[in-house]
């Protein structure tokens, strides 16, 4: 067997090609792109994905930290108990029942916010003179520079038994109503807190509407209602969609409002999650509850997006 000793020139030539390949690889757009994304990816990774990953791992762990980490599915088993599920005994599905209630409340709050935001943003974005638009938007936004706790508490004297509304009712000779510590109070509080998250993106869409499009529709015989249905609604869909996502997600995560305004029977899913972290110190179970909510919200948003896209293309046709 003969060994071929490569000559020095040969090695040098190979090294040169290797270096060239390496340099062109490093110099390629893909690597440059990745390198330039590096800082933002690291920041996002550290402050965003790492905690979520930690929670995810935690949700599969045992409760005791003394025995060290042991893999278990018991937390997810507690949320989806097999016996009541198989026997259709849905009343025993404590956590899923609360989750359904939370999603229902979020849906109400989102719909009411959307319905309220349309006239407000249409008026400010199209009807009001340009000079008054910013001041009016500021009026809507200024209360939200104070703490949401203060803003939530401020509803108590309005809704309470001897509060503002009941005071007015009794003055005109009507029976006082139980408003505070009811689901209605929770809904009112959530709508009030989350309305700006609907108004802002919707206002951006409204302000972007071309007044000539509305006039053209009127000129072609469209009444106010039809102008809204045919022109305003489809052209502001992107803003409405952004607002719906904001408000829905924020509502599913609400726990202060149901506690303060909803009363002892008004707790929602997120109250249980928070109590796992704050009172019972069962972080593993709390993490599992969080992940169920995350998964369901993502699934709903995905389905809504698919539905919106197919609706949009159907309208095009």
């Amino acid at each position, binding site marked *: 067997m003969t060994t071929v000793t490569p000559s020095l020139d040969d090695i040098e030539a190979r090294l040169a090609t290797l270096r060239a390949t390496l340099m062109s690889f490093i110099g390629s757009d893909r690597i440059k792109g990745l390198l330039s994304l590096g800082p933002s990816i690291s920041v996002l990774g550290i402050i965003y994905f790492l905690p979520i990953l930690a929670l995810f791992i935690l949700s599969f762990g045992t409760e005791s930290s003394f025995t060290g980490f042991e893999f278990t599915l018991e937390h997810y088993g507690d949320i989806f108990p097999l016996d009541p599920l198989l026997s259709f005994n849905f009343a025993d599905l404590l956590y899923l029942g609360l989750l359904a209630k939370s999603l229902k409340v979020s849906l109400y709050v989102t719909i009411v916010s959307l319905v309220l935001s349309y006239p407000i943003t249409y008026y400010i974005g199209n009807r009001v003179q340009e000079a008054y638009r910013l001041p009016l938007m500021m009026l809507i936004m200024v209360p939200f520079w104070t703490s949401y706790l203060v803003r939530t508490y401020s509803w108590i004297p309005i809704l309470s038994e001897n509060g503002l509304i009941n005071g007015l009712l009794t003055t005109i000779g009507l029976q006082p109503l139980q408003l505070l510590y009811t689901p209605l109070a929770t809904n009112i509080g959530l709508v009030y807190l989350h309305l700006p998250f609907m108004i802002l993106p919707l206002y951006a869409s409204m302000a972007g509407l071309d007044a000539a499009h509305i*006039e053209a*529709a009127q000129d072609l015989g469209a*009444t106010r209602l039809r102008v809204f249905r045919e022109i305003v609604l489809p052209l502001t869909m992107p803003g409405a969609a952004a607002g719906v996502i904001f408000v829905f997600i924020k509502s599913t995560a609400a726990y202060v409002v149901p506690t303060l305004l909803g009363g002892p029977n008004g707790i929602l899913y997120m109250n249980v999650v928070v109590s796992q972290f704050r009172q019972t110190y069962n972080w593993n179970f709390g993490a599992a509850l969080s992940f169920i909510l995350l998964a369901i919200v993502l699934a709903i948003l995905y389905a809504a997006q698919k539905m919106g896209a197919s609706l949009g293309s159907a309208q095009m046709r």
Partner: protein
Amino acid sequence: MPASVALEDVRKEFGDVVAVDDISMEIEEGQFLTLLGPSGCGKTTTLRLMAGFETPTSGTVKFEGEDVTDAPAYSRPSNLVFQSYALFPHKTVGENIGFGLKMRGVDKAKREEQVLEMLDLVELPRMQDRSIDELSGGQQQRVALARALINEPTVLLLDEPLGALDLKLRRNMQLELKNIQEELGITFIYVTHDQEEALRMSDKIAILNDGRVEQVGAPNEIYEEPATRFVADFIGETNLLDGTYDADAGVVSTGALRIPVESNHDDGAAVSVSIRPEKIRIHPGDETSYTLECTVDDIVYQGNLVKIHVSVDDTELVVEDHAEGLDTIPDVSDHIRIGWETTQATVLQNQ
């Protein structure tokens, strides 16, 4: 028969600004009327008052004798072609054109049939399924026209509809618009600031200035017999000489010149004499009623035409002539004789 559109003392104020200052006019059915004027003269506001997008501060708007002053835009028998076209970006070409019919409750099959007819009329066959942003500016313009015409309006209002097109396309569309108007026989009210466009297309032109109508007339009337100094100055090019009218001598004194005119103004009235550059002859014959000696200041050769700037004392004049009609083109600082017929000098009251 009542006028297709009539404005009676229509006034529109925006705060302190008077956009339309007591305008009255009548537009006959089937007429192509152009509202012409510089920007800010109130022509677009006048059009929007007719369309129903603005309510007059005072006065009456009538369509075929019927008072529509307070009627909303959607109930008027007029349609507007917008300067920006205002095509609905989320609808196809077909849906845009059929929009007016949809609003009137015409069923889908009938709508589609009429949309196809309209696409043929504006020469965009088989484009009904295109989206708006796939179209060129000229095509969008045609869609905007079709969207208005499909409703068979008795009056079509057009707000500088060709403003965004390049010159060549503009010329073609001018002819096409005129043809469509003649074919359909409906009243067109057309807003433009382009006098050439107005002269080319209109049956009648209304010259607007500062919210008021300066003159309404056929294109040649407006050009040949301007009613005011503004009209003479605004339409085409003219020599405007300010002076005083001497009724006894029948002349207007301006600087050192005493220009003979035919006029029935008061003696001593402050007037302007307007003489179009092409009406002034170089080296006029003896039969020409008014001639004068002047100095050539500048010569602008324009191919078929030659423009000669001359002066007499302090008075400057522009003379325009066909280059080939001249035996020799004079040189700068030559002394030449020019002249014009007295009938070509229009005397206008000075405000």
